[in-house]
């Protein structure tokens, strides 16, 4: 039985005050809050078994290694990867993407094409632009529609035998649109292209099955799904990861080193140079256990209710326009009111203890498409309540009356 008030007790931060008002945290798409269980996993590691992993013969090192590798197995199971060594720990989504982009520097040739969606976040645009500059490959953009969905007809026409890679976010961070990634992957594969899916915005809401999707690379960050910042993962099919060159040189990722030559370790260590974020990796696993303990089905249906309620309530505010009206979307509402700048609305909401995001959400191309400076974005989590949506509505109405 889903009891939001019971769950909220796991998140001490949710009971704090901001500017003299109880906090209403609606910036979950930027980062989720961290439950006690995850924080305790981190302190437990430092208090009881902090040691470097994969090399010590002593007990602490073994315990730390076991916990770290157990987390990898938890992540593998969650995403249904075929092997644990297909899960690479990284510093987060951005590093995961850079790791693949850097690997493709030696694979791509002049005239090759990369397809990227118009809904992408900056971190999923910039590395590819850099890659194209280095290799002479061309970056092509799958355009978006006014509803905030991908223009799939144009996607079909852009896809051809020169297409080597397709990069699409599973969910758009600015609008919440859930992209038809299964269809994209199937069509790309028919042309021999590989597909990288950025799962950062999807992971708190949707359980992706990498084998069912037949996706080539899937990346995400722990801090979006109740884990800590600074850790994330790169999933890649074994054969593909083996074919990629190592990303960074250093300890942990080598098999033998002489001054003439270094041979690299097997997966996953080949991509995990240096001492990793051990506590973060362990906590990532605990965060997934926490989410699965609630259940992704339960989370999805509760968040769907929140989204419907919030959409109805906010739409009644005069002049409020919602951006991103895809049928399939996560619990995100990106909006503007009349000609008010999102910054004005966000600043006043903050004074009332309501945390929303304002600005371009690191997705400037989307804002350019709508010809707006940005939006106010309220993004919901399973620990948000209907009462908090009422507070948001009241806050917006008050902001509007002040600004008029």
């Amino acid at each position, binding site marked *: 039985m889903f009891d939001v008030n019971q769950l909220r007790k796991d998140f001490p931060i949710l009971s704090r005050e901001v500017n003299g008002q109880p906090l209403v945290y609606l910036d979950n798409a930027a980062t989720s809050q961290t439950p006690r269980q995850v924080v305790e996993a981190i302190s437990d590691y430092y208090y009881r078994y902090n040691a470097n992993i994969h090399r010590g013969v002593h007990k602490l090192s073994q315990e730390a290694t076991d916990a770290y590798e157990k987390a990898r197995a938890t992540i593998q199971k969650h995403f249904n990867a075929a092997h644990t060594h297909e899960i690479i720990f990284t510093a987060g989504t951005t590093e995961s993407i850079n790791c693949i982009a850097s690997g493709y520097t030696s694979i791509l040739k002049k005239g090759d094409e990369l397809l990227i969606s118009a809904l992408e976040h900056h971190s999923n645009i910039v590395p590819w632009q850099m890659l194209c500059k280095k290799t002479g490959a061309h970056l092509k953009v799958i355009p978006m529609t006014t509803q905030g969905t991908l223009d799939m007809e144009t996607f079909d026409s852009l896809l051809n035998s020169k297409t080597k890679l397709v990069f699409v976010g599973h969910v758009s961070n600015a609008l919440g649109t859930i992209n038809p990634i299964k269809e994209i992957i199937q069509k790309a594969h028919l042309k021999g292209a590989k597909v990288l899916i950025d799962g950062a915005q999807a992971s708190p809401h949707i359980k992706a099955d990498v084998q069912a999707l037949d996706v080539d690379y899937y990346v995400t960050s722990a801090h979006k799904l109740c884990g800590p910042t600074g850790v994330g993962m790169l999933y890649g099919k074994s054969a593909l990861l083996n074919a990629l060159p190592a990303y960074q040189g250093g300890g942990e990722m080598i098999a033998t080193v002489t001054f003439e030559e270094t041979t690299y370790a097997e997966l996953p260590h080949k991509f995990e140079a240096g001492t990793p974020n051990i506590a973060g990796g362990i906590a990532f696993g605990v965060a997934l256990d926490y989410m699965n303990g609630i259940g992704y089905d339960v989370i999805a249906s509760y968040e769907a209710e929140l989204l419907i309620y919030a959409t109805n309530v906010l739409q009644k505010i005069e002049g409020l326009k919602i951006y991103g009206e895809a049928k399939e979307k996560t619990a995100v509402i990106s909006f503007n009111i009349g000609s*008010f*700048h999102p*910054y*004005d609305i966000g*600043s006043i909401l903050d*004074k009332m203890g309501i945390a929303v995001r304002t*600005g371009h959400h690191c997705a400037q191309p989307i804002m350019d498409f709508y010809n707006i*400076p*940005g939006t106010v974005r309220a993004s919901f989590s399973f620990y948000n309540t209907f009462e908090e949506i009422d507070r948001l509505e009241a806050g917006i109405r008050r902001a509007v009356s*002040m600004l008029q």
Partner: protein
Amino acid sequence: MKTIEAIQEEIVEEFSLFEDWMQRYEYMIDLGKTLPLIAIKYKTDNNIIKGCQSKVWVHAHMEQNKLNFTADSDAIITKGIIAILIRVFSDQHPKDILAANTDFIDKIGLKEHLSPTRANGLVSMIKQIKMYAVAFQTQLN
């Protein structure tokens, strides 16, 4: 002519009358409406202050060795903030603008706007005003 310091004290006194943030914000919004607006020909990308989430344009011109500022913003609260700065720094000699400190911002409860995470660029606005002062001071020398 009032000194920069005297104007700052005046503003601090005005803000001290308010009991809560709402009154302060409402006052700022009103101040924004009094902002000496920048002429359309100066509202160019060159005059946009970087580091602001909202757009802010500032232009300076010299009259009888004193600097005067005009500005605009697409956000109302930002307009209020720049209006306060212009009230403080307009009709002043460049060397006085350069010598002025901006501690009064803290005293009127806008300290949070100085934080880089606010991204409203109050810091950038002050920097831009001082840059204009440097440029015009060089002309005077």
